């Protein structure tokens, strides 16, 4: 059952659709063939050398004409439509670039040339092999008379039947094979290049992790604060008569948590608005603008950058800059406008970040938080095979992070 299906499949409707596609290519090939044959016509009857030169020149002329046609943008678009409709196969699911680079044109042109050559073969098969097969079969049953000069004249009918069948089978499977070849080549030559695919993948992953980060930020900050609001307000409502003092404290906590949530929401929305179109995420190349922003907010930043910090891969660079941003934000929130030492060093495949600032002189006002930023930074570092270390030594708060390029 299964082997039978395998044998019969090339004779299915897909092959006949692809045959249409291929003979179209063959038809387009014909005028080019005419151009290529023209020098040989001129040299007809001259010496062998002249004919050989004419054939070589004709072939070059034909190849040039095909190449010139192949790079036309309209031809590429036509090929995409024809291949999608008639070849179908994996190209159908492929994202076709609307604007193309020079390399894309060369690939599309190669596909066009391949279409013409395979189409020429199938066209010739349709004109020569297919009718020959039929003629042999008719000859075998004595309906057709093979011409007198033919070496097949007088052959036993069995031989003629076999040859006839052979022609038909060769034609059918040849067409199916070339159709399959074109269908296989289509996404590779008409689809996006591997560079484009990679860039697309990076963009999507970047966008996803960006969205995940925002979701987590909102979950952590606003969700957390609103939980406090809900629990404290519920408690206050329940106890307002029995313990007014408790209720008053609860309402103060509600007030503080709600304004904290608003501040966090403000920050998150600002990030959403600042993000701009995808692919324009802030990376370590933008460290200067981050530093000057933080300086405008009151921090006095001593920056030291060592190593090739601008040549890091995008996801790592972007996370690194966000860790720095978070650390600078923390310094500002907890210690106020203080001097901050920022060190970023790239040594081999390791990125080291260090942000150091004096501890606040008076203890910070209690606020609903609890190392969320730190937890987030640790997650970012861990996703790049690194760690976060934060500690207070001699009145100085230092955050150190490592990340690895190859992780």
């Amino acid at each position, binding site marked *: 059952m299964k082997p039978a299906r395998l044998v019969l499949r090339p004779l299915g409707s897909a092959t006949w659709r692809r045959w249409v596609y291929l003979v179209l290519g063959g038809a387009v090939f014909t005028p080019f063939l005419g151009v290529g044959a023209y020098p040989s016509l001129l040299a007809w009857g001259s010496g062998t050398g002249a004919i050989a030169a004419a054939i070589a020149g004709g072939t070059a002329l034909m190849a040039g004409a095909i190449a010139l046609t192949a790079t036309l943008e309209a031809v590429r678009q036509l090929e995409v439509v024809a291949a999608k409709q008639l070849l179908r196969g994996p190209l159908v699911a492929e994202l076709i670039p609307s604007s193309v680079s020079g390399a894309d044109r060369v690939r599309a042109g190669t596909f066009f040339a391949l279409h013409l050559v395979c189409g020429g073969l199938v066209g010739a098969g349709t004109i020569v092999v297919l009718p020959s097969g039929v003629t042999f079969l008719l000859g075998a049953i004595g309906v057709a008379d093979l011409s007198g000069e033919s070496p097949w004249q007088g052959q036993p009918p069995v031989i003629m039947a076999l040859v006839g069948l052979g022609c038909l089978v060769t034609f059918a499977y040849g067409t199916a094979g070339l159709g399959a070849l074109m269908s296989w080549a289509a996404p590779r030559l008409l689809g996006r290049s591997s560079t484009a695919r990679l860039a697309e993948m990076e963009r999507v992953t970047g966008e996803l992790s960006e969205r995940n980060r925002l979701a987590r930020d909102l979950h952590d900050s606003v969700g957390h604060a*609103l*939980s406090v609001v*809900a*629990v404290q307000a519920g*408690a206050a409502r*329940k106890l307002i008569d*029995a313990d007014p003092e408790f209720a008053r404290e609860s309402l103060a906590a509600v007030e503080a*948590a709600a304004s904290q949530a608003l501040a966090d929401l403000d920050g998150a929305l600002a990030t959403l608005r600042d993000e701009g179109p995808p692919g324009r995420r802030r990376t370590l190349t933008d460290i200067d603008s981050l530093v000057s922003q933080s300086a405008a907010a009151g921090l006095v930043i001593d920056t030291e950058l060592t190593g090739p910090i601008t040549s890091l891969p995008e996801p790592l660079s972007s996370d690194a800059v966000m860790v720095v941003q978070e650390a600078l934000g923390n310094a500002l929130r907890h210690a106020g406008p203080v001097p901050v030492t920022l060190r970023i060093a790239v040594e081999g495949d390791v990125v080291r970040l260090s942000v150091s600032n004096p501890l606040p002189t008076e203890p910070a006002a209690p606020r*609903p938080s609890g*190392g969320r930023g730190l937890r987030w930074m640790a997650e970012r570092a861990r996703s790049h095979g690194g760690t976060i270390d934060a500690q207070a030594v001699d009145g100085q708060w230092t955050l150190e992070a490592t990340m690895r390029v190859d992780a």
Partner: protein
Amino acid sequence: MTTVLIVDDEPLIRRGLRAVVDAEDDLEVIGEATDGTEVVPFARRHRPDVVLMDVRMPRIDGIRATELLLAAFDEPPRVLVVTTFENDEYVYDALRAGASGFLLKRAGPEQVVEAIRVVARGESLLFPAAIRSMAGNHIGTPRVRRWSLTEREEEVLRLVAQGASNLEIAETLFITVETVKTHVSNVLAKLGVRDRLQAVIEAYETGFIATR
């Protein structure tokens, strides 16, 4: 008197929950913990009946703490997971780890104390729709089913997954509550689970009930 331990890294949440619980005559908060590391030692000393467990905490989170707690006792305290968001993957993991139910932080004080009473009685707190959607988000390919039930037991399990009480199941199937109880305990035994909530999770994870 039902004794309660509150585990949450946010002092303001602990303070609010404590006030709500302590205002009830039959409930008493006997302690607070700021993360999962303190839960088992505290439970050994004071044997709370119910633990209100936050999920996302530094060091040992609510999932791990639930696992540790259930492993440490023959008759462990009931764990009620307290969460900010319903569709939190951590909540589902905590339920799988053996929590008796979950409670949203935004639920009002009345629901909080009611939920504590329900799990203290040894019942599960089932939110059928929420469990279904959490299971749906969580399950890839269903696990192999290593149990088989009678037709009646299958009906009972389906009704349990819809959140039906024993009485409702009895009325639906025209059998007595006592018979329902027998079926339910047979189902729990065959599935190798501790309570109804675990049975429902098992039913979803083995594809016995489709999640969508």
